[in-house]
C-alpha cells in the first residue's frame, strides 16, 4: 500500500483568498448564513401565527356573551328578593301560585312539593316559570369589543333580555348527554365513545403492530423451515415473499387516505363480519342493536388505519438499538428471542410507546372513516359495551358545526377544546412515559 504522490499545491491553477481577502470572504459567507437564519426564523413565526389564529378562532366561539330573556322576571315573582334567599315554604307557594293545576299534579306525583328541598324547588321554578331563554349569542370578540353595538341591538329587539358572559365549556357540558337544545347539550356520550375507541384501538393495534415490527426487523431474513428439504424451502420462500410484500409496502399503506380504510372497515367489519361485530354471535343483545355499526367495528377500522404507522415507528425504534448490544448478548450464548426480549425491547420501548401513542392520538381526531363505518350522529345513550352504538367527539363536532344557529357553533368550539385537551393529555402521557422509561433504564 503506497500513497499516491500529491500534486504540489503551487502547481494547482486556482487560488485561495489571501491576506485581507480572507476577512472579506469570511464576512460575506457569514452574511449569507445570517440571511438564511433570518428566513428560517420567519418560517417559525408563520407557524406560530397560524397556531395563535387557530387558538383564537376556537376560543372566540367557545366563550362569549349571551342575551338571556326570562319569561317572568325573578323580582316580579319574589317581590325583589333572590330565589336563594327564600325559605322552602315560600318557594312552594310561588310554585302553587304560578303553575297550572295539571302541571302541579304531575310534579306532586313525582315527589310532593312539600317534601322537596329548596334546591330542587328553585330548579323547578327556573325550568317551569322563569324559563330563561337564550335569545342571542355573541362571540368573545363582539362581547369584548363591540359591546355598545350589541347592547343597542338588544335594547331594540329584546328589551327585557340581559347580556351576560358565557363559557360554553363548563363541567355540565362535559357530563351532560346529547340534547337537541344547545343550551343543555353536552358531550358525555361522544366523550365516552372516544375513550372506548381509544382504549380498544390501543389494545388491538399495539400488540399487532409491535409484533409485526419485531418480526420484520429481527426475523425477516431467518429461515424457519429446514432449507435442505424441498418442502422446507418452499415454505421459507412463501413466508419470505409475503413478509417482503409488507415491508416494502408499509410506507404506502401509511399513506392511504383514511376514508379508504373506512370503506374497508364498512365492507369487512360492519357487513361481512356483522355476526361478530354486532355481538349477536356472542349472545350480546344490546337493546339498541346497531347491526355491525358498533364500537368494535370502529376500533378495528381505526386499528387498520394506525397499524402501518405503529409498525413503522416500532421498526424505527427497534432499528435504533445499537447492533453491538445484540452482538454482546448473542456472543454470550443468548438465543435470538432472549436477545430481543431482554435487550432489544427494553431499549426500544420508549420509542415504541411514543410512536404508537402519537399515531393513535392522530387517528382519534379522524372523522371520515368513522362516518363511513356508521358512527351515529345523534345518540343519547352512553356506550356500555364493545357492541354498543356510539358516537365520537369529532363526529359530534362535525355535526354541530354544520348547523346554522350560533349556539351550535359555540358548543362545537367547546367540544373542540374538549377534544384538544384529551389529545394533548394523551401526547403528554407519551412524553412522560418515555422520560420515565428512559430514566429508569440505567444508562
Amino acid at each position, binding site marked *: 500500500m503506497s500513497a499516491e504522490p500529491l500534486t504540489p499545491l503551487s502547481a494547482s491553477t486556482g487560488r485561495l483568498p489571501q491576506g485581507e481577502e480572507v476577512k472579506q470572504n469570511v464576512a460575506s459567507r457569514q452574511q449569507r448564513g445570517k440571511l438564511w437564519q433570518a428566513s428560517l426564523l420567519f418560517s417559525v413565526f408563520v407557524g406560530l401565527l397560524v397556531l395563535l389564529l387557530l387558538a383564537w378562532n376556537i376560543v372566540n366561539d367557545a366563550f362569549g356573551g349571551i342575551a338571556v330573556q326570562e319569561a317572568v322576571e325573578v323580582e316580579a315573582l319574589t317581590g325583589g328578593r333572590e330565589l336563594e334567599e327564600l325559605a322552602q315554604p315560600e318557594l312552594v307557594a310561588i310554585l302553587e301560585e304560578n303553575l297550572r293545576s295539571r302541571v302541579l299534579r304531575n310534579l306532586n306525583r313525582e315527589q310532593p312539593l312539600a317534601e322537596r328541598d329548596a334546591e330542587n324547588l328553585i330548579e323547578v321554578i327556573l325550568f317551569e316559570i322563569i324559563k330563561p331563554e337564550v335569545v342571542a349569542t355573541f362571540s368573545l370578540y363582539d362581547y369584548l369589543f363591540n359591546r355598545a353595538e350589541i347592547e343597542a341591538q338588544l335594547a331594540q329587539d329584546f328589551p327585557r333580555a340581559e347580556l351576560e358572559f358565557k363559557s360554553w365549556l363548563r363541567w355540565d357540558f362535559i357530563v351532560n348527554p346529547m340534547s337537541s337544545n344547545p343550551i343543555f347539550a353536552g358531550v358525555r356520550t361522544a366523550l365516552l365513545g372516544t375513550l372506548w375507541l381509544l382504549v380498544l384501538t390501543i389494545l388491538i393495534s399495539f400488540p399487532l403492530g409491535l409484533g409485526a415490527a419485531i418480526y420484520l426487523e429481527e426475523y425477516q431474513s431467518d429461515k424457519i423451515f429446514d432449507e435442505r428439504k424441498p418442502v422446507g424451502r418452499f415454505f421459507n420462500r412463501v413466508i419470505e415473499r409475503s413478509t417482503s410484500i409488507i415491508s416494502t409496502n408499509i410506507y404506502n399503506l401509511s399513506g392511504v387516505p383514511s376514508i379508504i380504510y373506512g370503506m374497508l372497515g364498512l365492507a369487512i367489519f360492519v357487513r361481512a363480519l356483522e355476526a361478530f361485530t354486532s355481538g349477536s354471535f356472542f349472545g350480546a343483545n344490546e337493546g339498541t342493536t346497531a347491526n355491525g355499526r358498533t364500537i368494535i367495528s370502529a376500533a378495528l377500522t381505526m386499528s387498520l388505519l394506525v397499524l402501518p404507522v405503529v409498525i413503522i415507528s416500532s421498526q424505527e425504534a427497534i432499528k435504533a438499538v445499537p447492533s453491538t448490544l445484540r452482538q454482546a448478548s*448473542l456472543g*454470550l*450464548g443468548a438465543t435470538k428471542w432472549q436477545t430481543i426480549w*431482554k435487550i432489544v425491547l427494553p431499549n426500544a420501548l420508549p420509542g415504541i410507546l411514543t410512536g404508537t401513542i402519537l399515531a393513535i392520538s392522530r387517528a382519534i381526531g379522524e372523522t371520515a372513516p368513522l362516518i363511513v363505518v356508521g358512527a351515529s350522529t345523534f345518540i343519547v345513550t352512553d356506550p356500555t359495551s364493545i357492541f354498543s352504538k356510539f358516537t365520537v367527539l369529532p363526529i359530534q363536532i362535525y355535526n354541530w358545526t354544520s348547523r346554522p344557529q350560533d349556539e351550535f357553533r359555540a358548543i362545537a368550539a367547546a367540544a373542540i377544546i374538549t377534544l384538544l385537551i384529551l389529545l394533548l393529555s394523551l401526547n403528554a402521557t407519551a412524553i412522560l412515559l418515555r422520560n420515565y422509561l428512559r430514566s429508569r433504564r*440505567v444508562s
Partner: protein
Amino acid sequence: MAMKAIDPQYTADTKYALEVRNVDIYYSAFRAVKNCSFGMERNKITALIGPSGCGKSTVLRSLNRMNDLIAGARTEGEVLYRGQNLYDPDIDAVQVRRSIGMVFQKANPFPKSIYDNIAYGPRVNGWKGSKAEMDELVERALRGAVLWDEVKDDLKKSGLAISGGQQQRLCIARALAVEPEVILMDEPCSALDPISTLKIEELMFELRQRYSIVIVTHNMQQAARASDNTVFFLMDKEDRAGQIVEYGPTEQIFQSPKDERTEQYISGRFG
C-alpha cells in the same frame, strides 16, 4: 430435527482448543479469506496480526459463528472444537457461543447495572441458584477480570458509567461469567490508554491458565509481549482475499520469520 451436541467430555489428544481447516469465508460473492488452516493451542494466547482489511476479524468471528449474523456471510471448510465441526448443519450456534466467548473491539456493556451485566450471561443460559450464589458468581467474574476492587462498592451503577478501560474489563468479566473454554478478543485495547492496555495484557496472562485466548491486534509490541503463538495474515493482491502467510510460536515469528513479508510487516516497513 436432531440437534447434535458438543460433547463436554471429549478429550482427544489434540493440543488444539480450536482448529481451523481449509476455511474460506465469503461475503456474498466476495471471498474475504481463503485457504485458512491453523490451530489454537489450549491454554495459550494466539495472536492474529496483519494489515487492515486482510480478514483477521472475519476469521475471528468465524470461530464462534458470529459471522452468521451478517447477511450473506458464508463459511466453507471446518472449524473443529472438541472433535466437532462447528459448521455442521446440526450444530446450533447458540451452543457454540456459550463455550466460545467474545470480547469486542469497542466495549459494549449493556445499559444495565454492573451486577446485571455480569449476571446476564448465566441467566440467559439457564443458570439456577440462590441470590447469594449469584452474588458469588458476579464477584468471581469481576475478580477474574481484575475489576472487583474498583467497582465492588457500586455494583448497582450503570455499566456505561465507568471508564473505557473498566468497561472493557467489565465485558471480559461478562464473558468469563458463562465459563467459556475459549475467549476471542478483537482488538480489545484499541480504544484504551497504555495503562489500561497493560492491565488487560496482564489479565490475559492470568486467564491463560484457565482459558484459551485468541486475540486480534494491530499493536506489534502487544503481539510480541502478550502472545504465545502468532498467525500473520496478508491480502492476496490478485483477488483481494486474505490468507495466512506464516504461523508459529511468537518468538520465532518475531525473531526469525521465514517469509520476508512477515519480516517487513513486523518491522513496520509494510502496509
